């Protein structure tokens, strides 16, 4: 708690400024919008944060979001997947395999199967990342940076660079994942985030598994010598991160009603990582808390809203956000030092 006191103060300052900026900012509608955005960004920050705590990093989050949103849209629409444009036995088998897969389930009629499939794809991506990092010992930065390019390329190839929209269909899914206000009038993304948050809190702070996450991040060798199966936990962290990215892709598609293969999710990894690091996760690993993640994400979401409500020109928006974040981080560091000296 002491560690994030500076951040809480900073968030409070931003919030007060926001309320003072414009009467419109005080409306319930604005708070609803902010809640929805915090829910969405929170989900990927949660994944990124848990991974960062183990000392890992994932730069492919945005591309995984783009891939999963595009894939889900295509499955739901019942689109035909393109063939690999190469000759030879291997690619013929691969294309045949894709056709077999396409004929396996009638996804447009079983949308839930499509969603589960997409989440499984997210899991598989995380598994591959995790295995490459732990077993092959390629640097996480390299593995996931390559993922950033690969998954973006796949979504563009798969969709043939076309926007994939859902039109008026799948109203039920859109209600469940986006528009429903059945749970205490809260936006659905916030509801999902709160559920995931509760699970993450139990996992990270109240279970032995969370202890291991922190231990691996703080000193992997020491953790391994004390009998922690470090590889398994690190892989788990990658799987959680990519699965949450896939889930974000699902929510994104239901909210935006379409996925743009070339841009959906661009730069999201940076927001996710920024939210986590701002929220007290150290990029060196071993430090951070779920509560901090929430604060970090909230600050990231509130700042653009504040900038617009103040009427700051949109060209300056990034500068204002960057400057404010830097101030926040400095404030946090100074307060933390004051707290330590006093003890």
């Amino acid at each position, binding site marked *: 708690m002491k560690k994030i006191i500076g951040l809480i103060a900073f968030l409070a300052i931003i919030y007060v400024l926001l309320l003072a900026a414009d009467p419109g900012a005080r409306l319930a509608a604005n708070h609803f*919008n902010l809640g929805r955005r915090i829910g969405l960004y929170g989900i990927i920050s949660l994944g990124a944060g848990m991974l960062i705590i183990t000392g890992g990093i994932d730069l492919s989050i945005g591309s995984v979001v783009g891939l999963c949103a595009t894939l889900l849209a295509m499955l739901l629409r019942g689109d035909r997947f393109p063939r690999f444009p190469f000759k030879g036995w291997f690619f013929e088998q691969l294309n045949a395999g894709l056709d077999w897969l396409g004929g396996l389930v009638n996804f447009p009629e079983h949308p839930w199967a499509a969603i589960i499939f997409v989440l499984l794809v997210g899991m598989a991506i995380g598994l591959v990342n995790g295995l490459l990092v732990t077993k092959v010992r390629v640097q996480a930065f390299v593995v996931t940076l390559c993922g950033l390019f690969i998954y973006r390329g796949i979504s563009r190839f798969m969709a043939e660079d076309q926007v994939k929209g859902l039109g008026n269909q799948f109203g039920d899914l859109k209600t469940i994942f986006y528009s429903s206000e059945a749970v205490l009038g809260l936006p659905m993304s916030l509801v999902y985030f709160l559920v995931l948050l509760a699970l993450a809190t139990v996992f990270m702070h109240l279970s032995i598994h969370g202890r291991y996450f922190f231990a691996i991040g703080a000193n992997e060798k020491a953790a391994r010598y004390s009998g922690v199966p470090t590889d398994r936990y690190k892989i788990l962290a990658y799987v959680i991160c990519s699965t949450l990215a896939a889930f974000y892709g699902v929510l994104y598609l239901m909210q935006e009603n379409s996925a743009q293969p070339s841009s959906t999710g661009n730069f999201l990894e940076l927001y996710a990582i920024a939210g986590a690091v701002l929220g007290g996760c150290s990029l060196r690993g071993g430090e951070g808390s779920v509560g901090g993640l929430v604060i970090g994400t909230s600050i990231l979401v509130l700042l653009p809203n504040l900038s617009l409500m103040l*009427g700051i020109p949109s060209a300056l928006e990034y500068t204002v956000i960057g400057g*404010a974040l830097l101030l926040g981080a400095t404030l946090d560091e100074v307060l933390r030092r004051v707290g330590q000296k006093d003890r």
Partner: protein
Amino acid sequence: MRRWIRRLSVITGLVASILFSGCSSSDSVSVGERPDVAFISNNAHEFWSIAKKGTEAAAKETKLKVAFLMPPQGTSEEQRRFIEDLMNKGVRAIAISPNDSANQVDFFRTINNRIPVIAVDNDIPSPEARRCYIGTDNVAAGRAVGKLIKQHVPPGSKFMIFVGKLDSQNAQERRLGVVTELAGGAENAKESIEKMNRNEYPVKFGDYELLGTMTDDADQAVCRRKAEDTLTKYGDVKCLVGLWAYNPPAILEAVLSQKKAGEVVIIGFDENEETLKGIREGHIVGTVVQDPYNFGYESVKLMAGLIQNEPSALNRPDMNAAKQIFIRHRIINKDGNALPAYQDEKVEAVDPFHSRLKELKGQ
């Protein structure tokens, strides 16, 4: 204790500077002042800064306060965020160049039920989701590019198209216009267009052969690299077409670096400074330009009429039955001569066009 006080003063200073930074911006951009109407572009390119001048001119005439917003990443998600926040801030009408309009119909319908929405540059394909459309007829503008090819490239030649992203509607429409013109009409082009959409290159359109469509994710450096590779790979390519503003300069750089100036015809779109310079120097035969100034000007004028409930606002002679107002595109070439293949296109010489453009940009 003294240390404590010193630290506290640092913190107070930090907090004050945050507050101050909030206040100081108030002088220039009027914090708390509510815009009456808003104009949201689809990205932050220079093109829209010309539209901004148009909105400013109209704002002066109509005495409205106009918020002009450019989403830095050019996504529909950012635009949605802008609109939601502006609605809470109490704007009374919105003009927007929607990214991915086809899939945002429901969203825009909800907004349009509350305040007038005007689609700019990219139409929203539903009459209830916007009051009207203002922009270029991109298919017709693409056909103007096709006419430039017909005029300046010998029949039987191969050509390549460069554009930022193909999942953008205007990119698709412009390309469609180009190939339709070359094939001599929509009927003749049908089969080849299907082939093109399946990426089964090369595809014949009339007397010309399209080698492919190169995308670059709106990255000029990538476009240049791909243009260079095209020139090395296809020694017999005779024409390179760039459909987004930064494409022609990138292509020009590539052609110059490969020492192919004079051998390859370059045809552009929009009015990038380098494109105009290329036309003046004879490296680019022509470009098709839109009129973003009037996008901005006409949008604000229309929004003013709509929020003042003037019945005549939507009753304009230049509006068609689908409630679209097309702002005419023009061909810009070196001397402004209307050549035979241009047919009924408006043509303007590069120099007078450029000096007026500089005025608009305040240079």
